């Protein structure tokens, strides 16, 4: 069996390919955010060396408004489509699913390889926009028409953007088919659904969301592409005048785009958080040396969040002019999401209660996840209530909320997952001291950037704004914005520690051995990294995934493969 490292069908190689590429894209997306923070902290000040990088967008090093629009559009698109989703779903889904259910590989290894290689194709397509006339897409990651819908309003970069997102949609759908088929069909003997680790429950729910929501986004993107390239009017109403000349479009509805887009993109929010919740549910018992509190409650809560996630999309559209009666029903559905989410948070706290807590790096990130996600979730309840939304809609409050969910939640969850499974992936431990320093710096600076956003939002500062100092009512916000920008630069610099630790430990890390965390699930019963085919012989599962500190047991952890003592059932 030849093992081609680059065009590999091995799920572990594909998982690591997803991991590395998504981390690189996150670095890129982060740099775009730094440019935005420069403009917000010091509006209109020159960055002379940027002129060479972007002569049209930043002539003389001073940022143009169009360039700022492009920055927040590409920051959001890169982070969501090429960062968080491929990291949480692509990297961990591929790496963990077969290992945790005791399968030698995915159900469709070649489809899996295709799913990865569509990612660079898609990214290249979207990023080609930077070279296009007028620059990359600049209509926001939400790409609302009519702005995004015609050549007259948005240049070729927007076309590349839509085409790239369609390609990425194919990648996601192929991945989802693979995950579901593998989990349904390739579990080891004894691995019933109720013995699966929560991360697998989470990835399973995520895959269902991806499978059913992504095609609707693909449909919307295709219609947008047709509007732009062929001249159809699906999202373009009559009577549009651009630069003094009337456009020939008629009969389309901009609101239709919002419905189709959010029908995907709200479930996508859960696609970006459920896996992180799963990782945390695996990590907490390991570092509290206690069984997970409320295993079934957490598992079914994940499924419930997924199901309700399909019924809340229009809470992004309360101020769009849709029927207010619809707003109320979507508000109620949105509040319902808080119930399974609360069940999860309660169960995590129950897991920690009187545990033998070990504050290693993965555990710190997991605790960071819970605390930050709770802030993200609670501010989501503010925004999900129609009267409050009227005041806070399209302000920095929304930006703060989504960063608490997607950075405070998804990214701390991802850091927890990376530091937890790194020894399994590469056979070596990451440096724990460096890891803890990285956590604390990230935690402090993250909050210093994002928490003031809530205050900015309540002060009325709109999101996606190039120069707020031009409004007298907002001019006094310069100081706090400058402070946030400094914190943002520190936050970015702190990530160098993580990158260094990641690379240095590949060569110099302490050898990890099979089971460095003394954990119970199947991936820890094979070597690190596992061989091709994962297990020397197919594992047989005898118990649930979180048997820590079982009374009477010889050790404080009992692997899933350990047979029950004789004489008992």
């Amino acid at each position: 069996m030849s093992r081609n490292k680059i065009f590999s069908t091995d799920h572990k190689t594909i998982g690591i390919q997803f991991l590395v590429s998504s981390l690189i894209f996150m670095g890129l997306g982060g740099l775009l955010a730094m440019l935005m923070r420069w403009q917000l902290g010091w509006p209109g000040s020159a960055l002379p060396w940027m002129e060479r990088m972007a002569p049209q967008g930043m002539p003389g090093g001073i940022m143009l408004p169009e360039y700022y629009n492009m920055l927040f559009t590409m920051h959001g698109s890169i982070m969501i489509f090429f960062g968080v989703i491929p990291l949480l779903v692509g990297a961990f889904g591929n790496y963990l699913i077969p290992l945790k259910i005791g399968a030698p590989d995915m159900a469709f290894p070649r489809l899996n390889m295709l799913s990865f290689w569509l990612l660079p194709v898609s990214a290249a397509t979207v990023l080609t926009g930077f070279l296009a006339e007028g620059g990359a897409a600049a209509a926001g990651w939400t790409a609302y028409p009519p702005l995004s819908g015609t050549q007259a309003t948005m240049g070729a970069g927007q076309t590349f953007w839509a085409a790239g997102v369609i390609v990425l949609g194919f990648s996601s759908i192929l991945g989802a088919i693979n995950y579901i088929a593998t989990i349904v069909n390739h579990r080891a003997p004894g691995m019933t659904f109720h013995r699966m680790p929560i991360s697998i429950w989470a990835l399973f729910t995520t895959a269902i969301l991806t499978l059913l929501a992504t095609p609707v986004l693909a449909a919307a993107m295709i219609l947008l592409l047709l509007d732009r390239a062929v001249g159809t009017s699906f999202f373009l109403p009559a009577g549009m005048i651009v630069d003094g000349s009337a456009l020939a479009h008629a009969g389309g509805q901009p609101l239709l785009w919002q419905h189709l887009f959010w029908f995907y993109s709200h479930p996508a929010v859960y696609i970006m958080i459920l896996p992180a919740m799963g990782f945390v549910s695996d990590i907490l018992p390991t570092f509290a040396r206690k069984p997970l509190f409320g295993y079934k409650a957490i598992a079914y809560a994940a499924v419930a969040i997924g199901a309700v996630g399909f019924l809340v999309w229009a809470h992004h559209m309360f101020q769009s002019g849709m029927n207010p009666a619809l707003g109320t029903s979507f508000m109620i559905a949105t509040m319902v999401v808080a119930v399974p989410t609360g069940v999860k948070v309660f169960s995590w706290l129950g897991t920690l209660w009187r545990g033998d807590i070990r504050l290693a790096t993965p555990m710190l990130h997991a605790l960071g996840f819970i605390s930050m996600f709770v802030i993200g979730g609670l501010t989501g309840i503010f925004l999900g209530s129609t009267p409050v939304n009227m005041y806070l809609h399209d302000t920095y409050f929304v930006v703060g909320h989504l960063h608490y969910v997607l950075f405070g939640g998804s990214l701390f969850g991802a850091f927890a997952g990376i530091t937890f499974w790194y020894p399994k992936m590469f056979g070596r431990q990451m440096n724990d001291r460096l890891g803890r320093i990285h956590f604390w710096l990230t935690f402090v600076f993250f909050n210093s950037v994002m928490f003031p956003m809530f205050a900015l939002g309540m002060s009325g500062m709109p999101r996606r704004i190039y120069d707020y100092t031009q409004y007298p009512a907002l001019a006094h916000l310069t100081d706090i914005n400058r402070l946030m920008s400094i914190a943002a630069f520190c936050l970015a610099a702190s990530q160098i520690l993580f990158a260094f630790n990641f690379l240095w430990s590949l060569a110099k890390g302490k050898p990890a051995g099979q089971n460095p965390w003394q954990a119970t699930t199947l991936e820890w019963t094979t070597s690190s990294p596992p061989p091709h085919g994962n297990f020397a012989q197919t594992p047989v599962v005898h118990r649930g995934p979180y048997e820590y500190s079982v009374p009477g047991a010889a050790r404080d952890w009992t692997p899933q493969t350990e047979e029950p003592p004789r004489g008992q059932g």
Partner: protein
Amino acid sequence: MTTLAQAQDTTTGIPSAKLGMWLFLASEVMFFTGLIGAYIVLRAGMSSWPHLGEELSIPAAAINTFLLLTSSMTMAMGVAAVHRADVKKLRLFLALTILLGSAFLGVKGWEYSVKFAHGHFPGTAIFWDCYFMLTGFHGLHVLGGVIANLWILRLTLGQDFSERRGHLVEISGLYWHFVDLVWIFLFPLLYLI
């Protein structure tokens, strides 16, 4: 390579390839839901809509419905033939299915050419945008099914087709019936109601 796709070593006993096709069809259902949903919303938003019988050829669409329904029957007979390991009959029914599918595309192409001759293109009016979008994507799916069946027809020339590759007929059949089903929705929505 590990042969995971074989039926005997799956947890549920369902072959993974078949499960995968069902999952793919679930995503396809959502794709057409998005497109058809967009059509319904756009049409409901217009104060007037063209009188369909005058703009579109109902006889042509009725013939096409007949062709596609018949092709679903021949496809099902092909699946039955592969279960009996009757490769000769299988080839006959696959060929008939391919022929009927191609005839559907031919009629569709004729309809398109008539529209083009009258100056109706995508981009001329929202009605034509919807018509070409829905029938175009459905047509592409029919084309995909025809190509898949052609590929399987070629495979039947190999050794022991029924034992080694027989499951492909069933999977292709699932897809073909789905494409047929989409047309059953499109025909009334576009031509009749």
